[in-house]
């Protein structure tokens, strides 16, 4: 008897004094941590216009164990459900319980996102439905049906992402693409914790320790983008019924003013419950509206690239501003011909840009590669490639978009492999006019235009302008030099001015904006899959550049057909806030131009 009493006392000592594990169990038994979700930061454009805000929604939550029989018709009416839908939800719930996805003791979502009216009527009747309750949450609200690729979207965190971090828990919302993803940490704020005392059935019995351990949620930071929403929307209208991209940058700061990827979609389509319906539709669209062409598409730069080859030639000394080359309908050798169009001959450097002469650049490019300064074609080619890298080609620029494509710049090794080391400047001649192996993204092209506008340097393109209480990344203030001397830019930029303003024979006369000294360069990228892509890069005004722009219109034909007019309209809109009456016809033609359905119609005939 004494022995048993001793055993009891010993065991009690172990349980109550010696072993602390039971105390923790007791705490977790009675304490329920309720996460307090902060409101996500707002997003403004460069002029302070609100782009993204939050809206309150309500989820119906359920604790399966606590459900008692209820009036299902009443339930359905207040939630606007059909009886079948309710039954379906219950079948689903039971499956989830069986597969241990949800617990019968813990709340899980039963019905997502009630409207305000549904919430009202359901909340009133809630007392009749034991085991159910309503939980508030915020969803994104988009003020403009625009900028979807820039803004990205917010959604439930994936299981893969959950594994590598500690902040989020299952069901948390997280930025999935665009700036929502890039600035997730700033926008999300800091989750708070509230501790509730609960009984064995999980019913709330008040605050735990009177709320002393609670941590208030910290709201997300508001951010301001460098985006100009008016220009962005105008760009989207111009690109309607076309496939392609517009990127506009403020050259002095590297701030992205516009980033259009066409076709685009209304970001509101991907909010909350609607996303499950709309996402598959968008994902299945053959025109890939979810794809951000501005940073992910790779195109040949076409003739716009002649500016770069000219700059390299000038810096290398193989080209002088007064160098002239003859051209008669192209560049002809015994091995191959590169065609050209009809224009005056011979031409000097500025004129070659004005007329976009292919032959001139064949000569010029071969001069670079066959420069006796270098011992071999490999050496000279890699020197040429190094210039390109400095211009921002071949690598991701480091903008605040996470899935930026790096484009492609070949090196000597690329051709060594293809041609078994026996190749020369003629083999790669198409690079002289921006064709061939070279691939760039529209963002890189806009950056190139900004570099030309800046006469030799650029700042990493970025769309963040300001974060509440936080400085933006230093890398966006850093100047990137291209090591091309300043004096080499004059003939190039003069050529770009002539391309617009030079009169008869100039390639981009349609881009003329009376009163604005716009400089531009057309490009027509050969496309093995169909019609050529129409390209235009430009900046304006010439002596005090405010905007640099690159426009790609897939299968648009000549650069002057779509690219140049769209770019000039964008520039005019940005600098003067309106379109001059005498250019209205261009605007009308661009707005109404339909490359998508026209093609379909053609195919139908």
């Amino acid at each position, binding site marked *: 008897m004494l022995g048993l*009493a001793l055993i009891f006392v010993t065991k009690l000592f172990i349980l109550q004094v010696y072993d602390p594990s039971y105390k923790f169990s007791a705490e977790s038994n*009675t304490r329920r941590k309720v996460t307090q979700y902060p409101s996500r930061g707002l997003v403004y454009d460069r002029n302070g216009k609100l782009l993204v805000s939050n809206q309150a929604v309500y989820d119906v939550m359920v604790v399966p164990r606590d459900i008692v029989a209820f009036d299902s018709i009443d339930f359905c009416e207040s939630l606007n459900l059909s009886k079948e839908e309710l039954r379906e939800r219950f079948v689903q719930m039971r499956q989830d319980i069986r597969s241990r996805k949800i617990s019968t003791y813990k709340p899980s979502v039963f019905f997502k996102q009630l409207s305000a009216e549904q919430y009202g009527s359901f909340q009133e009747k809630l007392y009749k439905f034991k085991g159910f309750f309503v939980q508030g949450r915020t969803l994104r609200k988009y003020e403009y049906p625009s900028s979807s690729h820039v803004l990205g979207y917010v959604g439930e965190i994936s299981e893969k992402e959950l594994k590598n971090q500690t902040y989020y828990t299952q069901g948390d919302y997280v930025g999935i693409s665009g700036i929502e993803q890039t600035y997730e940490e700033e926008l999300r704020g800091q989750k708070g914790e509230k501790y509730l005392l609960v*009984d*064995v059935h999980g019913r709330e019995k008040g605050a735990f320790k009177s709320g002393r351990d609670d941590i208030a949620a910290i709201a997300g930071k508001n951010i301001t983008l460098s985006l100009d929403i008016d220009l962005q929307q105008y760009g989207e209208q111009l690109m309607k019924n076309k496939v392609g991209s517009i990127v506009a940058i403020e050259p002095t700061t590297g701030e992205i003013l516009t980033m259009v990827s066409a076709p685009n979609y209304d970001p509101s389509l991907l909010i909350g419950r609607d996303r499950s319906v709309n996402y598959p539709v968008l994902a299945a669209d053959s025109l890939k509206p979810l794809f951000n062409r501005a940073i992910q598409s790779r195109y040949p730069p076409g003739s716009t690239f002649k500016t770069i080859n000219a700059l390299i030639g000038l810096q290398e000394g193989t080209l002088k501003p007064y160098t002239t080359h003859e051209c008669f309908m192209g560049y002809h050798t015994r091995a191959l011909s590169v065609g050209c169009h009809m224009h005056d001959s011979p031409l000097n450097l500025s004129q070659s840009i004005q007329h976009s002469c292919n032959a001139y650049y064949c000569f010029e490019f071969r001069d670079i590669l066959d420069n006796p300064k270098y011992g071999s074609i490999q050496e000279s080619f890699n020197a040429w490639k190094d210039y390109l890298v400095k211009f921002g080609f071949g690598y991701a620029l480091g903008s605040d978009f996470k899935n930026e494509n790096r484009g492609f710049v070949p090196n000597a090794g690329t051709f060594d492999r293809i041609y078994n080391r026996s190749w020369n400047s003629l083999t790669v001649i198409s690079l002289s006019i921006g064709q061939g192996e070279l691939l760039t993204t529209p963002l890189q092209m806009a950056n190139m235009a900004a570099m030309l506008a800046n006469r030799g340097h650029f700042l990493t393109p970025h769309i963040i302008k300001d974060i509440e209480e936080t400085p933006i990344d230093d890398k966006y203030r850093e100047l990137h030099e291209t090591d091309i001397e300043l004096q080499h830019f004059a003939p190039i930029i003069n050529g770009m001015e002539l391309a617009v303003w030079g009169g008869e024979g100039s390639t981009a006369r349609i881009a003329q904006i009376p009163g604005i000294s716009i400089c531009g360069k057309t490009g027509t990228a050969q496309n093995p899959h169909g019609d050529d892509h129409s390209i235009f890069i430009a900046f304006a005004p010439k002596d005090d550049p405010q905007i640099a722009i690159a426009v790609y219109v897939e299968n648009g034909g000549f650069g002057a057909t779509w690219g140049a007019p769209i770019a000039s309209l964008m520039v005019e809109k940005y600098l003067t806030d309106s379109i001059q009456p005498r250019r209205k016809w261009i605007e009308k033609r661009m707005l109404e131009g339909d490359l998508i359905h026209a093609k379909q119609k053609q195919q139908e005939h």
Partner: protein
Amino acid sequence: MPNRSNKSIDWITVGLYSLLVIFGWFNIYAANYNPEHPVFFDTNKEYFKQLVWIGFSLLFIGIILITDSKFYVEFAYIFYGFTLLLLIVVLLFGKEINGAKSWFEVGPIRFQPAELAKVATNLAVARALSRYGFSFDKFGDLLKAGAVVLFPMLLILLQNDTGSALVYSVFILVFYREGLTGYILTFGIVAAIVAVLTLIVPNSTIIGLIIFSVIGLLYVKGARSALLKATIGGSVILILSYAVYRFSDTSIGLEYVLLPAILVFSIYMLYTTLAKRINKFVPTYLLILWSAILLTLSADYLFEDILSDYQRNRIDVLLGLKEDPLGAGYNVNQSKIAIGSGGLIGKGYLQGTQTKFNFVPEQSTDFIYCTVGEEWGFIGSTAVVILFLSLFLRLIYLAEKQHSIFSRVYGYGVASIFFFHFAINIGMTIGLAPVIGIPLPFFSYGGSSLWGFSLLLFVFLKLDINRNELIR
């Protein structure tokens, strides 16, 4: 001698009883206390009802104290017969609560005759054992005494109230005090240990252990030359049968491989003993050996086929064979959490969280000790253990002082029944005993049990007042 027969009531026991009942009521209040609605006068609350039951108990105690001691002796069998009748009636017309058909329900009052039966059986046992010339050495007397206990036990088993039925097994302690041979008690304990072992370790290991202990015992006792030969012979057989087992495709258990060897061993030992008429202790040991083997081989069957699922689960969880914190282990786990969370000095009266919000099931009845553990901590729980221990020691002390066998037997019965409840109830709340739903005397909520225990105790105290009279 003047006034010898009118010794006053034993105030120490009365004091212990009062302490337990009062402390018990405070814990029932705590277990039902709702911090959001701290109402006291709510006739639906258990703590209010318990006050009523305590009041009735005092009434019963009064009646007991004014009744002549001889009444209990004379009416012991009649009372016993009456409660047996009640047990049968409850089987037919009783109300089923928690799976046990053991309750009468009359209006708002529920009554469990099994509680009354403890008093009646104890009286009947005392009457039977105090009969002139009674001796456990007589087989007939042993049988009668056993029958007195087994009848109510069986009826309660039939009600599916295993816990209450098991209480009656504690009378073996009383019998032991009154001269029952120690073999039976020892045999019972050994059997229990073997039975538990069979569930944990393989049968072959147990049989191996048994045979080794028997060989060891025989070696100590003598008979060494015969033992050596028998062991060698057994080993040879063992190697042979193991070889057969190894190289044939049988699916029989390893334990059966041992049997031929043990059989040969036993036959040889028996033969030498009988032939040479020496070492007469050998057959006894062989009997023990074979009983243990039979028990081992049948325990699995008993466990699998006789016990119901929930009982098996509870035993498995207790032995650590199964982890089931949400199923069978839930009660015990939550109970340990509640007690463990009390710490050294407890959370303070009415400050418990585990026992407030229904985490511990049956928290005011079978698991009332959790409230003590949580709110009063190690100090409070130890105090309760010490209080009970004092009560038992006092009861045994008083029982030994009795002049009449009837009173002594009855006193031991009271102490044993309390002890069994105490051991199992507190044992289960701290995870040392299987979960058997029996109340903690004076603590657990419930009229029947409180009345039963009060009757049990105060009948003895009344007998004690007249201890110097030879009642029988």
